[in-house]
């Protein structure tokens, strides 16, 4: 069975985070376990990190460099669902709509794979987002209408082969376009690849999205294990 572990801290925001975790558990037909730092202390965090969970749910601000969950990220084998305080009440749609920014790196690709694994039961409406900036803009863009179609098709083939998703192309600041696209697409969750280090000067996109997103953010380490599927689900893939 899919296992979800939620780690909560302050009592006043615990119910909202647990509600999000329960929503995911219901959508994924998963078992939910809640660890409370206020009662169990650091042992709760260690227990959560060591558990064979398929998804860890934590408050987004706990992943800040000085936050209590910052140490989880580098070594976490499971995807982390970071829940901003502003995401209170944001539930999963049917099917869930996921915004998956892709810059062509392995990290970003791993997030798409994790999303598809995680939502393989209910299915997911995946919107792949690619933002052109001075580092990622193609050298050539011949005839815009044709270039968009052929480039987009090739990009999805190379980086999101399983997605069956649509591609949203934008230009500008990746940090701002990710947030804007999430709102425009009414995304339920944003999936980001993350190497695990959120110290100052690193992972600027991830840190910006964690601070400003209105929906939960799924963080996936490139080495994250695949989601466990019940035998019945595995047999039908």
């Amino acid at each position: 069975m899919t296992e979800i572990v939620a780690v909560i801290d302050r009592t006043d925001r615990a119910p909202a985070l647990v509600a999000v975790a329960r929503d995911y558990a219901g959508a994924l037909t998963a078992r939910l376990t809640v660890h409370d730092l206020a009662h169990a202390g650091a042992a709760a965090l260690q227990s959560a990190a060591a558990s064979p969970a398929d998804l860890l749910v934590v408050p987004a601000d706990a992943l800040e460099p000085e936050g209590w969950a910052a140490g989880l990220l580098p070594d976490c084998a499971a995807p982390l669902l970071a829940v901003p305080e502003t995401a209170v009440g944001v539930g999963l749609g049917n099917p869930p709509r996921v915004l998956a920014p892709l810059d062509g790196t392995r990290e970003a690709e791993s997030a798409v794979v994790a999303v598809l694994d995680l939502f393989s039961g209910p299915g997911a409406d995946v919107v792949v987002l690619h933002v052109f900036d001075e580092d990622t803009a193609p050298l050539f863009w011949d005839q815009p209408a044709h270039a968009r179609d052929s480039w987009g098709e090739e990009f999805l083939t190379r980086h999101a082969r399983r997605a069956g998703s649509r591609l949203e192309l934008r230009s500008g600041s990746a940090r701002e376009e990710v947030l804007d696209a999430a709102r425009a697409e009414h995304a339920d969750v944003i999936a980001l690849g993350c190497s695990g280090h959120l110290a100052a000067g690193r992972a600027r996109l991830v840190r910006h999205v964690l601070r400003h997103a209105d929906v939960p953010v799924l963080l996936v380490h490139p080495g994250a294990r695949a989601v466990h599927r019940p035998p019945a689900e595995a047999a039908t893939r």
Partner: protein
Amino acid sequence: PDEYHEDVDDDAFTYVMARWNLRRAADLVEDLDGSSTEVMAWRRLADRIADGYDPATGVYEQHRGYHRLEPLTAEALGRVPVAADLLLPPERLHGSQLIKQPDVLMLHHLVPDEVAPGSLRPNLDLYHPRTAHGSSLSPAISASLLARAGRLDEAVALLRTALRIDLDDLTGATPAGLHVAAQGGAWQALVHGFAGMRVRAGALHVEPAVPAEWDGFRLRLRCLGRRVSLRVEGDRALLSTDGPLPLWDGGRRRLVDGEVALVCGEDGWTRGR
């Protein structure tokens, strides 16, 4: 050619090509049927077309008002080539002097005898830094023109880009189809640019330029109904034809056949003596 500025007036490329077409049509009709009132009207119209050329600077203004646009260069966006239309909002792009590919300079490539003599270099100086090469066709044409202007190192760099567009999948979409036009452009860069080969008034003009990093180069093509090969090493060349071929030799038109040695001297490339 420049798709970054489409809704414009008095476009130099359009006017010069219109003029060339009128004159060329007049030539063809006169060759067939002799002159006529209508053909003479074509020529008068062609002579009256204003092309935006400034004799004081040697520069063609790409379109009316181009010189008043923001003087943005391609390098300001970072690496070149770059698809500038993916990085800049349309209003900024259209309001800048950035161009997608050679436009005025395309005239120097397509109809070099229709533009003002000696105008290649001043127009290269102005427009080349403003060329983003956002079209896969652009590097090859620019390479050709840079070679003709004697800027051989820059020409080789852009030729290399043109040749590797599909080999290195520089568009990110080569599986969708090879860029055959860019490959043709690379061929043109070698023939018209580095070999300096052009047909003028029914005779072949040859003016090779060998970059420092090349020992030489060799071409084979068909020209004026003949199989022609050209082998160039430094300031010497060997032209071979499979039959009589009109050739410009130091300003004189001569008929050559078989192998002809050419040398580069004070009068340009001429038959070796």
